[in-house]
């Protein structure tokens, strides 16, 4: 499945819904008229591309502009930018904040500790990971019990340890409590503000990020909308059929089951000088339609060859074999396929393929050797 990451402007829409302090902002989405949108906004301002990559500043995708004219031409330029397969989805224009100090705060899921953690630091900004690595004492962490929630006294104590005094203790702890509300209401795995900026008129969330729980999508309707709009066409197909899918740089189309086995397969291919064109975990218990759709999706990428590696547990080799035959009937010009089938109903599956004159390997290394021959 997909991890659902909200871009800054989407996270800030959620922040606004929960009354977190934000500077004046304006969103221009792709296709909107930049001149019209900017007529009411006051400059100087900061122009921030909304694109799913880190270090936007370093990539020149965030800049301060002095005038509206400058803003218009920068926005138009940003909408032409592409980084890898990512495009600039939208542009966020914000008033400049008068920065007295930058803080970091987030609520994050600690998966191995099986709890949420409130994390804060008085040394916010882009180098927070560096701070965590070199001076862990500068990072405050408080575990949050799901049954008790984030307690007000904990939030206040964190605010005080960040060095806030007077009214700022109230506003910081109020902000932490709102982060917790967002975490539970939106079923987030991460709600992050970095930096949280202290200005002469108080605290502002200047950059924000959220990661949502994809397992909760079925009961979070706003997530469903967001998720759909973010994906490439290939990813949409993958989502529709429940595949884990990532596009890679190699020449071999991959259809496998289980994330770990698929990764191990890519590692083995790399050791043999071959590279996968994709990561596709067809998921447990794949039926004929899912295998067919997965192969169809892989074919659209035009691989030199396709490697199918199935170790059936809940997935049945006979079902997979039948689906492969069905797909080959529909796609007579399919690229060469090397097939490895083992596990549940392996004998039946291999027989179905052999009867149709197709080889199937029981051993993964034999399949990889065969693939090397096919690729040449």
């Amino acid at each position: 499945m997909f991890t659902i990451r909200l871009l800054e402007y989407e996270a800030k829409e959620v922040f606004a819904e929960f009354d977190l302090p934000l500077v004046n902002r304006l969103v221009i989405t792709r296709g909107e008229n930049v001149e019209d949108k900017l007529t009411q906004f006051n400059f100087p301002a900061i122009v921030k591309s909304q694109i799913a990559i880190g270090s936007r500043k370093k990539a020149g995708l965030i800049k301060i502009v002095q005038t509206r004219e400058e803003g218009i031409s920068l926005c138009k330029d940003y909408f032409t930018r592409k980084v890898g397969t990512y495009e600039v989805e939208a542009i966020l224009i914000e008033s400049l904040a008068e920065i007295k100090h930058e803080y970091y705060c987030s609520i994050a899921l600690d998966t191995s500790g099986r709890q949420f953690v409130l994390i804060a630091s008085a040394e916010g900004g882009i180098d927070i990971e560096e701070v965590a690595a070199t001076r862990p004492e500068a990072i405050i962490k408080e575990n949050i019990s799901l049954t008790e929630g984030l307690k007000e006294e904990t939030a206040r104590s964190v605010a005080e340890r960040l060095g806030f005094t007077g009214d700022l203790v109230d506003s910081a702890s109020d902000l932490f409590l709102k982060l917790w509300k967002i975490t539970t209401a939106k079923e987030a795995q991460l709600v992050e503000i970095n930096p949280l900026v202290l200005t002469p008129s108080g605290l502002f969330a200047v950059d924000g990020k959220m990661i949502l729980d994809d397992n909760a999508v079925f009961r979070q309707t706003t997530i469903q909308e967001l998720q759909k709009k973010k994906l490439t066409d290939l990813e949409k197909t993958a989502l529709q059929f429940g595949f884990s899918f990532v596009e890679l740089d190699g020449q071999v189309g991959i259809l496998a089951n289980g994330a770990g086995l698929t990764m191990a397969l890519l590692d083995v291919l790399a050791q043999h000088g071959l590279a996968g064109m994709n990561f596709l975990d067809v998921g447990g218990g794949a039926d004929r339609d899912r295998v067919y759709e997965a192969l169809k999706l892989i074919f659209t990428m035009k691989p030199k060859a396709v490697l199918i590696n199935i170790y059936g547990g809940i997935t049945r080799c006979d079902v997979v074999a039948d689906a492969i035959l069905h797909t080959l009937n529909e796609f007579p010009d399919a690229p060469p396929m090397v097939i490895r089938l083992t596990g549940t109903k392996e004998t039946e599956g291999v027989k179905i393929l052999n009867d149709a004159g197709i080889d199937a390997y029981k051993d993964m290394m034999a399949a990889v050797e065969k693939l090397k021959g096919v690729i040449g």
Partner: protein
Amino acid sequence: MHISENSRVVVQGITGNQGKFHTQLMQEYGTNIVAGVTPKKGGQEVLGVPVFNTVQEAVKERGADTSIIFVPARFTSGAVLESLNAGINMTCCITEGVPVLDMLRLVELAHSKGLHLIGPNTPGMLIPDKIKLGIMPSDMCHFGTVATIAKSGTLSYEIAKALGNADVGVSAYIGIGGDPIRGTTLVEAFDYYAKDNGTNIIVLIGEIGGDEEEKVAAYIEAQNVNKPVIAYIAGKSAPEGKRMGHAGAIISGNVGTAQGKIDALSAVGANIAETPWDIPDMVKQHL
């Protein structure tokens, strides 16, 4: 882990396709399936197994003490909750996709009741020749003294099969499951087999992401584990993915790379396998 050939198993979702298919495979393996549960379908019989409406009835009527869950994702939290409330000692959740908030509550509940939970999104557990509580292939391996603990399902089948082919016997095969929050963590499973008298060697199968392998390394050091550990970490060739903001790195002090895990484990004396097929020979050196 908390199961044996004497476990009395109830299958939640026994009337569904997957539930029925795998009930049959488990029966063929010799697992003692005493009951099935599907709401509103009580009174039927599936593969000779009586079906009840609730887990509680299965406990009362058939003495079930272990459960395996095959119900669809959106009903899974409810099924686990029902199993825990009925006092089932070990609940094994095959279904994937349980929301994080639900799992956190279920883990808290299981701990408060002193009950055990494995999964979700797990292939289950196998004590070769004794009991299969899961969906893994039946012919992977035979009984012995090597515990195999894995994050990933199918990759661990590959390795268990390689062990079986090399005539290495397995004391237990455990898949902890692939969902973000798990009823049993890698460290908890490792702890169990580090202390298990029937286990002499532990094979650990990890993958990129999270910090559980690093925590196992810390455990090995803190507890002075002297059983040989053979580890394989998948995902060495994976491109650096999109990371979990900064917070993941701040919590765990690393970003869960394959190399980070390999370094942590080899620093505490674990033997690192280059490929899954190197594992049997490495195990044999310690038998």
